[in-house]
């Protein structure tokens, strides 16, 4: 069976302790969560959890069934690449010297990036895009000396929800 990244979107009640119930299911089944993103949806009593796990194809069925047993879980859907928009945002902190400074500012235009803070010896760059785009920027900036990276984890939405 093929191991690959599986993206799952879970709608849950926006209440204390719910996240630990959800992540507990992944842990008990022996799956690692590679990326996790949680926030309130348009209705404040519902949160959307988007998670990525490297797993075989039977993972989806297993995790779906176990998650659906939780009272606070309202919906579980797999988001398949090609049928959903997937984006990630990262913030990259870079230590600068003067020479880098001009080159970074010049080359950053090639990418869909934004410098959101620039001090004399440090800058923070915001990158938003697909996983590949984000990785490309990280790889490009690596030689300049990346100090820290903060990633949101992948967010995804299905292009058209057939069930609605």
């Amino acid at each position, binding site marked *: 069976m093929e191991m690959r990244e599986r993206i799952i979107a879970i*709608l*849950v*009640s926006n209440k*204390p*302790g719910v996240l*630990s*119930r959800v992540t*507990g299911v992944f842990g*008990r089944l022996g799956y690692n969560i590679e990326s996790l993103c949680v926030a309130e949806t348009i209705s404040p*009593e519902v949160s959307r959890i988007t998670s990525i796990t490297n797993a075989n194809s039977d993972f989806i*069925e*297993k995790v779906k*069934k*176990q998650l*659906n*047993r*939780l*009272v*606070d*879980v*309202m*919906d579980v859907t797999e988001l398949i690449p090609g049928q959903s928009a997937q984006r990630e945002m990262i913030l990259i902190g870079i230590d600068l010297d003067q020479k880098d400074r001009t080159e970074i500012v010049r080359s950053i235009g090639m990418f869909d990036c934004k410098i959101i803070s620039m001090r004399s010896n440090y800058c923070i760059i915001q990158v938003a895009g697909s996983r590949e785009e984000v990785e490309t920027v990280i790889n490009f900036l690596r030689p300049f000396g990346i100090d820290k990276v903060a990633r949101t984890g992948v967010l995804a939405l299905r292009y058209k929800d057939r*069930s609605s």
Partner: protein
Amino acid sequence: MEKTGAEILLQTLREEGVDVIFGYPGANSLPIHDSLNNSPIRHYLVRHEQAAAHAADGYARATGKVGVCMGTSGPGATNLVTGIATAYMDSTPMVVLTGQVTTELLGSDAFQETDIIGITLPITKHSYLVSDPGEVESTVKQAFEIARSGRPGPVLIDLPRNVMAAKCEQSGVKNIAMPKKRHAGNKKNGEELQRIATYMNRSERPVILIGGGVKLSQACEELAGLIEKGNIPFVSTMMGIGSVYTLNGFNLGFIGTHGNELANRIVHDSDFILTIGARFSDRSTAIVKEFAPLATIAQVDIDPSSIGKVITADISLVCDIREALTKLTPLVERKERSGWLKRIEKERNALGKDRSMKECGPAGAFIRDVQTAMPEKTIAITDVGLNQIWTVRSWEAKTPRGMITPGGLGTMGFGLPAAMGVKIAVPDHGVVVFTGDGGFFMNIQELATISYYNLPVKIVVFNNGHLGMIRQMQDLFYGARFTDIELGDKVDIVAVARGFGIQADKVSVENSGAGIEKMCSADGPFLLEVVVDPDTYVFPIIPPGMSNIDMIGGRQG
């Protein structure tokens, strides 16, 4: 009118039909115990919280109602854990109340504070921390709804002391909304029912496999109707024993490691298995790839996570069992099945030759004698170990709730406290618990509870001075290198029972008639110690890693 959180709690429990709580008080549950003074709910004080959970479990299994137990915060709550896990594994509807430190102390390592919700996350269906007396009513109602709906299970409500003591206007009751599931219901259920019926009607060697879910959905009569109409032989899991009682030869026994050889062999030969409310535990299937190799498997269960978890079902139906059976029976045709039934009869006769081991030897004969001596309406409770297998194979469960056993978790120490719960739940029934010396010592303190409330429970302690089932495994699978299994014979169990104020006697298993007579005719509780040879094992048995037809002590080939 203003009421305290505790008063609202007890009032809501009454509205949910609760008449009994098994519990043990402590500082943080005192507001509740204080209010119990003015409530018609009876509180039974056990001697250890684990027993409260098992008693509530026994109460629920005997009645089908939700069992309720209560402990204080910290150690009171952690002592409940084994009982909660037992209920969870066997899908017993149960509501667990725990005291908790005041809300301002939460998370401060206060005296007797423990994160019981965190501890019990994997062994509860759901849990609540109540932070406002206004939430008590809707929380309790939801907890009962969750405990008994779908696949039942334990729900825990953590109740901080100040929330229980605080007053609130009842009119200001806050409603906690129950999250709504999307994608509920399976639209294809009608087609699947038709497919099951078609397979059943076409199959030459069908078997119905009954799990514990049939009792839980109170679908035993409907199932008996299907079996009768379709002329279909049936087996059960250990949890399904007693769901359908018939003497027409269709009952082949229960499957699995310690199951009946006939049941295991017929399942292996079958070409279609209709599985109802069973989850194919490893104890039932032995090695999965050799389970029923010729059969198309259909599975009906209320819990989608039970389907395809262990065995891939060719046809599956997520549905309430009673509803499924009501719709399925009219679709199933009556078939003679004479070839299949003859083959089963032949197998039954061939296996019947060596009955000595299969009928569990002298222990089995003893259990049958006890059943004869007890009133017709008697519930047998088992502990875990040899006593459990002897009982489930020898006691004839004539009603769905006629025999109670902790099948999933296999909790030693379950029997004695569960029997208290059963007796309190159905006082007009006879109650007998079969336990071994190992499990008996694990909750021996409950003799004090039984004695205090004068509960007429009959207690059979099989004493072989050893952990018998583990001894059997060491004997068969670990080269007879016996270690750490001897309990010895230093304890005078009869004297101990009498010390607790319970009448008692001691007999040998081979010569037990007078003892049985004395136990069954005694008023009030009675303990009968039954001495058994430590070499008396359970046969046939499936060794680890073997298939259901490779039973040691079974027929070869």
